[in-house]
């Protein structure tokens, strides 16, 4: 899934660089990438979402 996320980010960078008129699509894809990144972290830590120390 990390590989997929980097591909999305590369596509967004290409849009911003070469197709700046597709700003809305680029931003939406960046939001998708952010959500995917957060989801991957939550999957990794779902057994204990909060830090494993005295809170």
């Amino acid at each position, binding site marked *: 899934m990390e590989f997929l996320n980097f591909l999305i980010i590369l596509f967004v960078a290409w849009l911003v660089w070469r197709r700046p008129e597709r700003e809305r699509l680029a*931003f939406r894809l960046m939001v998708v990438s952010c959500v995917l990144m957060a989801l991957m*972290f939550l999957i990794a830590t779902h057994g204990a979402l909060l830090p494993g*120390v005295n809170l």
Partner: protein
Amino acid sequence: MNGISEARLRTVLAWAVILLTAGPVGMAVVLGFAFGESPCIMCWAQRVSMVLMALAGLFVLRYGPRPRYLGTVVLLGAWGTFMAIRHSALHLARDVGQGFAASFFGAHTYVWSWVVHFVVLVVLAVLLILLREDEVEKGTRELGRTGRFAMGLFVVVVGANALQAFVSTGPPPFMGQGDPLRVSWNPRNWVWTFRGELRGAVTLRGGWNIPKPDPAHVEADAAPAGGPLADLPVLPVQAWETVGAPLDGRLTDLARDPATGRFLAVTDRHGVYVLDAALTAVEHRVMLDPGFSVDIQAPAGAAFLGDTLVVGTINKSYLLIRPDPATDEGEEWRHFLETSGGMSELRRSRFATVRARQMYVSSLAYDRSAHEMVTVSVPSPRQRRMVVSTFDAGDFMLSGEFLPRLGPDLALGGKRTLAEYVVTGAVVEDGLLYAISAAYSTLLVIDLAAKTLVEAYAVPGIEQPVGLASRGGELLIAQADGRIAVVARPGRAGPEVAEPAVTEVGAGAVPPGS
């Protein structure tokens, strides 16, 4: 208006993107290709977060400092900081040099992730403070030379990351791993998986979600016959006594000073009482102030350490208190909510355990022959084991820990374990730890030298035992209601044992302040 123009901000931002891309993100991928350094699944998420912050910077270069892009950077910075704290928490409290994976400039990658996200937030805040408000316009901007360089570098570095991610984590639905392998270009060494990270239930605290025991009440079967040890001999209650002195709160432990015959009683309202040998008169009394310092939860253990009183709490904090006629009452106001006077607090600190970590206790004993304090852990649904921990009574540091073995004369029924017993009171005599369990009303006798449970006795008729004290050849089982069951003390030395000499604790034996 003073401040920087949007054009200047975009130049600064372009360099920030270049630094972020070439620095932590670029170096990470170089380390992967050159040295095989491979990120775990949490590292990947933090690396992607840094890449996304740089990408949001490129959005600002192209479209200007619009709130949605700046807000995205703030959100990523905050989330990245949380991720780094969550990740670092796995390793920060370990011993010196015991981090995870490689370190750079004295810190591990998860700490650098924390630093990077924090610095990005600070840089963004400074830029926003300096930005002239009337300079921001809508529309697409030319990237300029620096901007194009930033863009090109970003594409190259992210492309390299994508390549490493393909090798290390695979195409969807495969994902990063908790314990990654080193990077290899040989496909036979590629491990692509996704099932490992999906196992287990979703929880907030995981192994830290330990229910607090009530030192005065244990929800458990009190009938000895239901316990894990089968066919135990009965230790009959020979007599009943009562704590006649008025106590504030429920009794949670009772200790006896072999030198003077006085008793030390503690209650769940942080009351500490020195009682006379008849248990009827209060000689000293304090109500502990549990706040504003080391976390003092419900007292669950009491012991005499010479003329020093040791009070232990369920969360393995402890206090050293000493009756002292020369006490400065004004000085003690900070320690005690109430006091009868003549009592000084010498120290409050914490016992640190290893095997009993993430476990509460409900007992405390003093082993005079070894000059050690002893605790027995309380099992929980997440930590199902019985751990005996001993602490040097000089420095109060851990000196030993063990899970008691089963003696040859004892047998556990079926799949039962010793962790079903809930020890709420303990006392040490002649190298034997006597521990009373509120669950199944059972007295456990543990040989501390052999680390073995050598004997166990059913004690029918007791209810909610909270403490255990020794008086000659007797054991006094204190209940939460203040009643005391008197039983004969079993063990190798026989029922009538002479009082051992008391180890006096001078001021020099008390460890320095916390």
